[in-house]
């Protein structure tokens, strides 16, 4: 498989050329954030307060890492389920967010917003926290330290392996990848429906 190397921040050109199914190595600075941080960011927007971080051109990795052992940059740091962020995502895309890294399907509403704002969603390897930690070379909390593992970190990554799951054209590897391998199952009246 050909592998594409990308350097952050993601440019509009980067986003335009990436297609669902591409294998990518990510490099450079990105943000971390998951459930609790997303909730706070959205509360900020609702209250008309400035966000603690400028999201224009940024990529968010949905991760809540393990505590950092001595002598290391970070603990295990694999992706969490992205679907839980779906209700917050369109508003963050509206703030200029351009890339997301997580695992699992996204809602139609998110996919529509990704098309509208031209954004890309990468799948990292769920459950591969020890492997991914090797690609993380810098980690610093930049917002919400009280949230512990759920704080927003500025991460620096080198050759972080991901796959484009949903591109800005709306192609969804979770759907077409599954359809390619689904077989008719006699006992059920659906055939590998991606739900």
């Amino acid at each position, binding site marked *: 498989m050909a592998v594409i190397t990308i350097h952050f921040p993601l440019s509009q050109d980067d986003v335009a050329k990436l297609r669902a199914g591409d294998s990518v190595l990510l490099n450079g600075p990105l943000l971390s954030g998951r459930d609790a941080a997303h909730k706070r960011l959205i509360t900020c927007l609702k209250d008309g307060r400035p966000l603690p971080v400028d999201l224009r051109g940024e990529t968010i990795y949905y991760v809540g890492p393990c505590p950092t052992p001595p002598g290391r940059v970070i603990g295990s740091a694999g992706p969490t389920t992205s679907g839980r962020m779906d209700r917050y995502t369109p508003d963050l895309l509206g703030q200029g967010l351009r890339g997301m890294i997580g695992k699992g399907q996204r809602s139609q509403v998110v996919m529509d917003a990704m098309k509208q704002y031209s954004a890309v969603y990468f*799948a990292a390897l769920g459950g591969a926290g020890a492997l991914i930690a090797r690609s993380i070379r810098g980690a610093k909390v930049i917002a919400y330290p009280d949230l512990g593992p759920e704080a927003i970190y500025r991460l620096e990554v080198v050759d972080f392996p991901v796959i484009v799951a949903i591109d800005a054209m709306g192609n969804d590897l979770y759907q077409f990848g*599954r*359809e390619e391998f689904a077989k008719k199952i006699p006992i059920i009246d659906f055939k590998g429906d991606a739900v």
Partner: protein
Amino acid sequence: MREIVAEQITDLVARLCQTANTDLGNDVMNALSKAYQTEESPVGKDCLQRLIENAKIAAAESMPICQDTGMAIVFVEYGQEVVIKDGDFAQAIHEGVRRGYTGGYLRGSMVQDPLQRVNTGDNTPAVIHTRIVSGEHLKIIVAPKGFGSENMSRLKMLTPAEGIEGVKKFIIETVSLAGANPCPPIVVGVGIGGSMEMAALLAKEALLREIGTPNSKQDLINLESELLVSINDLGIGPQGLGGRCTALAVHVMTYPTHIAGLPVAVNISCHVTRHKSGTI
């Protein structure tokens, strides 16, 4: 009567929390290797190879296999001759989880109140399931459970008329709905029968069986292999990106039930299906 000091329980639980999270069992490693051999999707094969590499790194560097080091689910077989000395049974377990997680740099994933949602910081409390058995030993199994897969689990109270076909449909439908979210390839724990909570507990307990160890009931062996084929025919594949291997195993447990009911619970576990045990 045999006295066991509470501190012994704490020590054992702390150790099991750490080894369970860094050392993936041979059963899962073997199942992943087998899946790698047979996977047809290039992306799926690549994912499986990296999952195996990840588990090796974790074991070699004592790093958690996954950053979701789980809710500490603790099963105890409590020999009825045992008396706990110098402490409280449940507190000794919670303290073991506290020491295991904080000392092992494992993530604290527990919030004190499900609605207020403030992290307890040390992954306590544990969820403890105790069964009193004969004898004078304590057997403790620590099974850290990640919530990407736990969230995809379901339970339904079927009617007896829905029968085995209804049970199969519900299990396959649950895996289909879960899709990519529970980090496939998954292990599917199924509990059939009992009451509502009993079915759920059986489904959890089914995950403790080593992959590759056959069910003790012949009819369930057949049901498990039939379900495994159907689930893998869903096409979800490793990481949900399409492929042949969606599940590594399906484990079913049953219990007598009421004439009016047919409860079925499906507890999905990710490829990091962890459990370590020890006996005092």
